[in-house]
């Protein structure tokens, strides 16, 4: 019985929260015909895995980036213009053909601690949105979703950017090429040990 309750709860989350403002924003972006493939640091949607590695190798050589969290991400350090040094960790998702279609990014203040109230993710969120607006000229729409907090969304042609505080420490950003059908998750296969 307990399991049914948990599943029902998850299902309730899964099918709640349709936002017409968001859908309109997405429709407008997709119907505009504009392609916006730029992500950041010269990385683009559609970039091949090999080109991504080569590009990162060059940036690493030039000390622009270095190995990121747990070696499973690329680290770009933002040490100017923010209230504390910010670590930006990213690593793209590739299509089955090996091309970038999505880029999850995590931002955090290096000096974060539970008691540093100025270095929590709510402050960082504001600075990250400002940074992304500066990088892309995007305008973010604030969506409030019942029981699931707030997400900021910008859609420029095919490029959607989502921003939200993941917890008190991290702000998550997700760039997605909305014209690409994401590969089917391996979850079903991988979930069974």
């Amino acid at each position, binding site marked *: 019985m307990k399991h049914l309750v*948990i599943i029902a709860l998850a299902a309730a989350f899964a099918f709640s929260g349709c936002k017409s403002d968001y859908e309109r924003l997405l429709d407008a972006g997709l119907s505009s015909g504009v392609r916006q493939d730029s992500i950041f640091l010269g990385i683009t949607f559609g970039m091949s895995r090999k080109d991504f590695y080569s590009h990162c190798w060059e940036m690493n050589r030039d000390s622009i980036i270095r190995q990121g969290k747990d*070696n499973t991400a690329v680290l770009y350090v933002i040490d100017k213009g923010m209230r504390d040094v910010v670590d930006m960790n990213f690593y793209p998702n590739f299509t089955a053909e090996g091309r970038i279609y999505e880029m999850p990014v995590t931002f955090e203040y290096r000096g974060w601690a539970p008691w540093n109230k100025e270095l929590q993710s709510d402050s960082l969120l504001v600075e990250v949105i400002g940074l992304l607006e500066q990088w892309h000229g995007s305008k973010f729409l604030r969506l409030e979703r019942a029981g699931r907090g707030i997400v900021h969304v910008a859609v420029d042609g095919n490029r959607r950017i989502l921003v939200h505080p993941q917890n*008190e420490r991290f702000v998550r950003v997700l760039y997605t090429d909305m014209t690409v059908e994401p590969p089917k998750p391996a979850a079903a296969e991988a979930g069974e040990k």
Partner: protein
Amino acid sequence: MKKHIPLRLFFVTLLLAGFGQACTDLEEELYSSIDGDSFLSSEAELIAALGAAYTNLYPLAGNGNIYSLQEVTSDEIVVPTRGNDWNDGGNWRRLHLHTYGPEDDRIRDSWNFLFQGINTCNRLVFQFEKVEVENKAAILSELKALRALFYWWALDTYGRVPIITQFDVPADFAPPNNTRQEVYDFCINELESNIGNLSKSNDATTYGRMNYWAAKMLLAKLYLNSEVYTGKTEWPAARDAAKEIYESGLFDLEPDYFSNFAVNNGGSAEAILAIPYDKVFAPGFNLAQMTLHYGSQNTYNLQEQPWNGFCTLEEFYNSYEDNDARKGSFLVGQQFSSTGEPILDDGAEPTDPDGPPLNFTPEINELGPNALRQAGARIGKFEYELGGTQHMSNDFPIFRYADAVLMYAEALWRINPNDGQALMLVNMIRERAQVDPFAELTAENLLAERGRELFSEIHRRTDQIRFGTYNDAWWEKPADPSDHVNIFPIPQNQLDNNQNLTQNPNY
């Protein structure tokens, strides 16, 4: 081995809550754990929300924080610098040499890992205290016990950390360091006052969670290391806590040592507290990537090329007798592809006496910067899944029954060096490993046995400090000039952002 289905349900449900916004395509990574406490109105919902506290454990066994801090500073694991690989500004060499400082990445990231865990517990306690549901007391006690686990690691590594139990702290809150004694007392008090509310079940409903036995094990750890933390021994208390686990009848030694570390190790009879890693749903355990050579990708058909980093020290490898079953914890010698072909390392250095055939040698020519690509016995204790991804699905044992047995033995031995039961317990562990029994226990053979049994399980630095060998010289590392290195420095970023924090001595 049977996997606990309800546990999977528990974690999968958490993920569904985060990934399931099907109708809007706002599906990925959007679950914000700090939003929406209004839905917490039943025990099941509290348990689901509780998962946020446990997901903070996932980075533990990656290379970014506690695993590296506790293992690479010890005499059992080293990360040599192989040309440009694993240089990382000298971070890894400084950990090995005990010359780490407040600016080091692992020092900073481990602190943030620990306080992230503490902060989430504080938030959930804050949220849960506001709602009235069945079994709330048990859930709050579980959170406080989990918080004590994070605080134990903080006590063990940084010593003088601020104790913070409040989530809604004022804007100008800047806590000073607490003393190590105060942090120790806090952990003990939190555990002793909450353990009575924790489940004594050891089954699918409590797997991967802070139940009574995990809390008891944590108490045993605290008491066993009390002299290091406070200057005062607590051997009888350590004995009693470990004895209760030993005599519970709920745990047993697995006949096959390596079944504890298999991909499907979720039902191990030795698991007291484990992180239920999953390559998709609970990622973060990257050991295959961390230790294996680039060419090992072909041995296991790994989806990503490994990073050729972590290996063991030759002296530690040689501390195993040849017939010790646990010596299979290492990969040495010629490596083969999954189809049985010898693997060649096209990038082998001209100076490598083994040449291109990929041959892991226990001997490592140097710590860096020019350690050979193939040098060093690799960590093979955990099963590597054929076709595996960067993230492994093996559960990681934070607390394992064999450790409880050895701790029980050690506490008995500390009280009476001629205790016959202590010797029997250690020999029980040795018998499983198929090596001859000891005739007597000494500090040297007890520490060595703990090392062999618990290799790469994040205990070695703590053990070496307790046995007084952490400051000794070993391969490529001179003796420490001072024991101030037995606790790590407070990260510089933390000092910069909190004027009331002070640095640990001699950093």
